[in-house]
């Protein structure tokens, strides 16, 4: 799709808060307008407040275990025979994924705003677990919305959320995945906006969420930059991250956006094929539109209805994407590609067997693209893959593939 796919009436002149080029905005029910404005103000003041920043930094260091490792995957690199591959180990964070960076930041904001009840949506369950964890740490009431289909395939994380004291609400309408969990969380927020804080899990949604989530995740890219300069003496050549709503990818890419020499590649879920309902390749196969409060790329049919999606990984199974990714695609700064279910499952196997690391199926999409790309380069080319999470939650899904004999090449 080219720029012409943007309806002229959606063109924004000049720079406006909450916009990434023409993308973004806050297309929400009027009830939420004051709440989003209050959130934006609270965030602005928190950014300038040294005590807030120190508390956040301290949590990242002493609770999450940051900085996360910048790991040279030598055996994987040798196995692929080409570029040198490094892994940014977000899987080693407390709770097992990058999501905790964002939830701790948002829960600190909620506390600052005096909100007593936290709601969140979750797909893979990682954001749900991270939110439940942060709520336990700060003694806040926590309600998590999760699609029935995701509750089935990410059962381990449902148990973890319950152990952490969260209430998990099963969403049984629509596609019963992340999209519908967000719908339900929004409906809850509309009805309880006075005392409730919506802890949004990805870099999508209405302004100011895409900015807040990106900023809290930027630690990934900042550390990567520092670690690469220290260990390699230079910046990497290529960064690869998976894209669901886009939070791990934007946090990883953001500090490198001005470095034109660094190639940025986002990997979407290619699922089982190109037909409607078989994939979740929003940026690669979608068009701009409005979903969940934001003008961004989305998967829709000719009547503007949101399409069903599919991915082996629950965290990528989403028909929308963060507005800043739509912008990076539009201006050509980042490239977006797709990886199929089978390729992701095979990449999981390769990483397990060469490095002894079990990646989340989401992150395995990024690994799979590195597997494809590495042989095209020599050892002087450095690829860093953001390993956004660990794969313990996915072992049952992987077992289903093994039993069906679809696991091996």
């Amino acid at each position: 799709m080219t720029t012409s796919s943007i309806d002229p009436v959606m063109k924004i002149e000049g720079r406006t808060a909450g916009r990434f080029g023409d993308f973004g905005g806050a297309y929400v029910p009027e009830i939420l307008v004051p709440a989003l404005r209050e959130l934006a103000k609270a965030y602005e003041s928190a950014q300038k407040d040294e005590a807030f920043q120190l508390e956040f930094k301290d949590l990242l260091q002493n609770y999450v275990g940051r900085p996360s490792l910048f790991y040279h995957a030598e055996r994987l690199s040798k196995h692929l025979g080409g570029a040198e591959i490094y892994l940014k180990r977000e899987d080693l964070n407390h709770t097992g994924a990058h999501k905790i960076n964002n939830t701790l930041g948002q829960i600190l904001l909620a506390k600052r705003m005096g909100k007593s009840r936290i709601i969140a949506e979750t797909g893979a369950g990682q954001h749900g677990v991270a939110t439940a964890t942060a709520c336990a740490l700060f003694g806040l009431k926590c309600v998590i919305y999760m699609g029935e289909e995701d509750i089935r395939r990410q059962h381990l994380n449902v148990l973890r959320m319950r152990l952490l004291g969260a209430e998990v609400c099963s969403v049984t309408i629509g596609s019963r995945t992340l999209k519908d969990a967000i719908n339900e969380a929004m409906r809850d927020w509309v009805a309880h906006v006075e005392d409730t804080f919506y802890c949004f899990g990805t870099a999508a949604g209405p302004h100011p969420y895409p900015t807040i989530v990106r900023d809290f995740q930027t630690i990934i890219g900042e550390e990567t930059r520092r670690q690469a300069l220290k260990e390699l003496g230079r910046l990497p050549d290529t960064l690869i991250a998976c894209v669901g709503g886009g939070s791990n990818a934007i946090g990883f890419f953001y500090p490198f956006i001005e470095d034109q020499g660094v190639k940025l590649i986002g990997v979407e879920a290619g699922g089982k094929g190109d037909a409607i309902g078989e994939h979740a390749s929003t940026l690669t196969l979608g068009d701009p539109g409005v979903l969940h409060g934001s003008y961004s790329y989305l998967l829709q049919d000719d009547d503007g209805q949101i399409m069903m999606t599919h991915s082996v990984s629950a965290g990528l199974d989403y028909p929308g994407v963060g507005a800043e990714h739509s912008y990076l695609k539009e201006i050509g700064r980042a490239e977006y590609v797709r990886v199929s279910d089978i390729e992701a499952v095979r990449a999981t196997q390769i990483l397990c067997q060469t490095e002894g690391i079990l990646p989340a199926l989401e992150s395995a999409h990024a690994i799979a693209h590195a597997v494809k790309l590495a042989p095209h380069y020599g050892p002087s080319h450095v690829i860093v893959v953001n390993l956004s999470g660990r794969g313990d939650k996915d072992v049952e899904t992987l077992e289903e593939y093994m039993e069906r004999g679809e696991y091996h090449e």
Partner: protein
Amino acid sequence: MSKRLDRIFSQPAKGKTRLIAYLMAGDPTPETTLRRLKGLADYGVDVLELGVPFSDPIADGPVIQSAGERALKGGMTLVKTLEIVREFRVLHETPVLLMSYLNPLLRYGWGKFVKDAVEAGVDGLILPDLPWKEGTNLRTETKRLVGTQLSFIPIVAQTSQEEDLLELSIGSQGFIYVLSRNGITGGEAEISAKVTGFINGLKQHTQLPRCVGFGIQTAKQVHCLAEYCDGVIIGSAIVRQFSELDKKELSELELRKGETEILEWVAEINSIK
């Protein structure tokens, strides 16, 4: 604003107040929707609100969500929704407002949509995921294309603050849609002193008529609100009754009889004989 809509609010109400009734287009079929729209108009409803089904209706409760699902399953589209309005206009002057989430309208193409909507006989738009301050471009473009034939009906919530209300008073037309409470469509609203105080307070900000909706389902609520505002909006309560009728296996005659009973109920809660 559209002449049809203007007429409704410049004349005294026929019943206790002005009644605005909602139906989901294509629930369960376009033919049924058209027949029921005509019925509502014939039974004294002042303004009709026609929902365009959308896959992800974040501002709607279970009743209207299900209505939308049924409509989409039956193949309902924006094109067919406009077709219903066109056919309704052959014999009826009752104003029709489309209630739609943004994406189906954007996909159709905004410019084409507003022209086709006016041509079909639509009088205004209620857009639950377009807050007033995000709508500047859309309103400007609409005005350029069709003048004031298509009104943007602003929605006001009790959470709205001074600055939101000030913005609303600029360029709004028709009436303002006042939410009886924070929440999604459906359920039952409590008409407390806080609510009526809020409705009264809006007079300081706007000359426009104020109509109250969300959770209105009884004659008692209508009569109480009639003292404070210029109209009431009934959505889920009507959709639910028609859908309960559709669930039963009825003969054509029984179905029509059931529909008439619902229409009589609608007239009755606004004290129209």
